[in-house]
């Protein structure tokens, strides 16, 4: 369950560039699309939802926790455990293999390594044969799948995806969206995808327009 109330954000702390966001309520397990043009503050909203930024006013509530009230390490820990984020461009710890990246993700969130879980997830995302490669050795599509794997490995209750398909062709887009939906459903996680990609409109019923 994700909900926001009266959320606003001020760039550089000045009132002149304040973004006001509509209230959002996404029940647990639902899949939502956040649509908007460039500059409409989509990514800012996503960062607010992920607790990467502090709002000027309002609250973000995830499964009963007001994350804007958390600070420092507590927020870091909560984010690591409860929120999985897929970015427009996938970033990894470049010196680690895909498998090690997933293991690091669990470790940073303070979770046990669980090698079995990693193996299963890699298999589901069909990148088992790339697990020992360095991120830079993977194709863009493979990288995005690996990024999804990393977002899912801690079994978060909220999955946030920022333009996950903008760099992908149609075929890979379908694949990635299917995977995201399937994995979110399997983990009973709330999925919010921020995008301006019209290809996705047909796939999601719940939409928020900014």
């Amino acid at each position, binding site marked *: 369950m994700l909900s926001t109330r009266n959320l606003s954000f001020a760039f550089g702390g000045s009132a002149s560039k304040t973004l006001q966001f509509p209230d959002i309520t996404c029940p647990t397990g639902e899949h939502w699309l956040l649509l908007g043009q460039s500059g409409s503050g989509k990514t800012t909203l996503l*960062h607010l939802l992920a607790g*990467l930024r502090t709002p000027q006013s309002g609250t973000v509530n995830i499964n009963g926790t007001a994350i804007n009230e958390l600070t420092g390490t507590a927020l870091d820990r909560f984010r690591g*455990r409860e929120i999985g984020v897929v970015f427009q461009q996938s970033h990894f*710890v*470049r*010196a680690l293999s895909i498998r090690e990246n997933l293991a690091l993700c669990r470790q940073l969130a303070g979770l046990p390594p669980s090698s079995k879980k990693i193996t299963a997830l890699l298999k589901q995302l069909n990148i088992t044969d790339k697990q020992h490669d360095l991120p830079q050795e993977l194709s863009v599509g493979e990288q995005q799948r690996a990024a999804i794997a990393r977002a899912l490995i801690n079994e978060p209750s909220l999955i946030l995806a920022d333009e996950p398909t903008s760099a992908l062709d149609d075929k890979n887009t379908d694949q990635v969206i299917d995977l995201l939906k399937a994995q979110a459903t399997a983990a009973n996680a709330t999925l919010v995808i921020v995008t301006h990609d019209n290809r996705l409109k047909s796939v999601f019923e719940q939409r928020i327009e900014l």
Partner: protein
Amino acid sequence: MNLLRLSWKNLTFKPLSMLLSITLFALGVGLISLLFLLQHQLQDKFEKNLAGVDLVIGAKGSPLQLILSSMYHVDAPTGNIELGAVKPFLNPKHPLIETAIPLSMGDNYRTFRIIGTNSDILDIYEAKIAQGKVWERNFEVTIGSKVARDAGLKLGDTFSSSHGFVEDDNLGHEHTAFKVVGILATSGTVLDQLILTTNQSYWLTHDHGPAPTPAATGEENDHDGHDHGDDAHDHGDEHDHEGHDHGDDAHDHGDEHDHEGHDHGDDAHEHDHEGHDHEGHDHGVEKTVPKPLLEEPAEKQITALLVRFKGRNYQALNMQRNINENTEMQAATPAIEINRLYSLMDSGEQALRILAFVIIIVSALSIFISLLSSLRERKYELALMRVMGSSHSKLFMLILVEGLILALLGWALGFLVSHGSMHLFAGQLAEAYGYDFSGWIFLPQEWLVLLGSLALGIVAAILPAMKAGQTDISETLLKE
């Protein structure tokens, strides 16, 4: 995947940059450590060999040279002094002097210096006999442990000396046969590399040398007659082999018999030649217990005198001044000369030390720059780690540990380099000076170097680490 392993992976991801940082660091650390090692071992050698000697008396010249030649046996002597001039100091009743040790030098066997002296020298260096006994008679020698080892000499072995301090077959005293009667236990002092014999042995080998005998070249046959080893067989019955001047006293050896001035005179008198079994004796006539130096003629020469005072008072200081001002000799204080040597070496060392510090600063700078530039390349990954739940302090530690690993590896490599090159140096130094150095001596200062290295690693990494710790996830990711 703990912090250490992650740091390590990050570093090895850029192996060349890592190699550069570590190599530079190792170079600086290695140079510093090597200087420590050299300085320590040199001072150790110098101080061990001071042996409580308060004054060295020798021929006029450089006092440092006198000390180096007669105490450390690395330089040429300043010259010789007449026994007569130092006889007062040799008198055991001298009010100021506790011990006075006469040294005669100038010959070597396979570069090991042969020193004519008395057994008091063993006491001041606290040396012990390991095998055999102390030399007593002329041409008996007691050798240092290093001599025994390196020249392969055993008890009972005989050898001929060479003139000077370098190995040169042309300068051999072929007719002098020294016999090893004792081997000293390793004392860690200069005695380890010396061959000790009587002062008189020197005179017996050398007195013929400078004797201005015109026939020296013309009477080769006579000289051949000196091959005592061969002649020894018929010594008893046929007593006329040319060249041996047994009957004559020392006073007339110059005019009549010109066999290069062999001075058998005094000794020969005390010997019953007819009955003596010369078999196997090369120099039977000379192998006698010498008289105390005090009873030897005043015109005989020695090279230096090592003096230990009963107490260091102003009279003792006056004695040094007196010798320097009123005699043809000089007196030098080892401690002062060695300090002078230290200060000479110090300026060279200073330059090297400055160089080492410059290298170390550059290496710290290289660590700083490589961390900072890797930070720039890794800013997304650091932001990502924050997204994955990593705290500010964890990122700070991650970079700090990277700096520490570089410093630690640099130190370790430098440590190996310094001891390794000291080991290589040791061989050269041993060849040049005869002193044993070792690459496998470890000093407490090296712990300081380690601590310094780690501190430097922290200093170099702290700014990049702080920058990493302050990574703002949102700002960074928005800029993609």
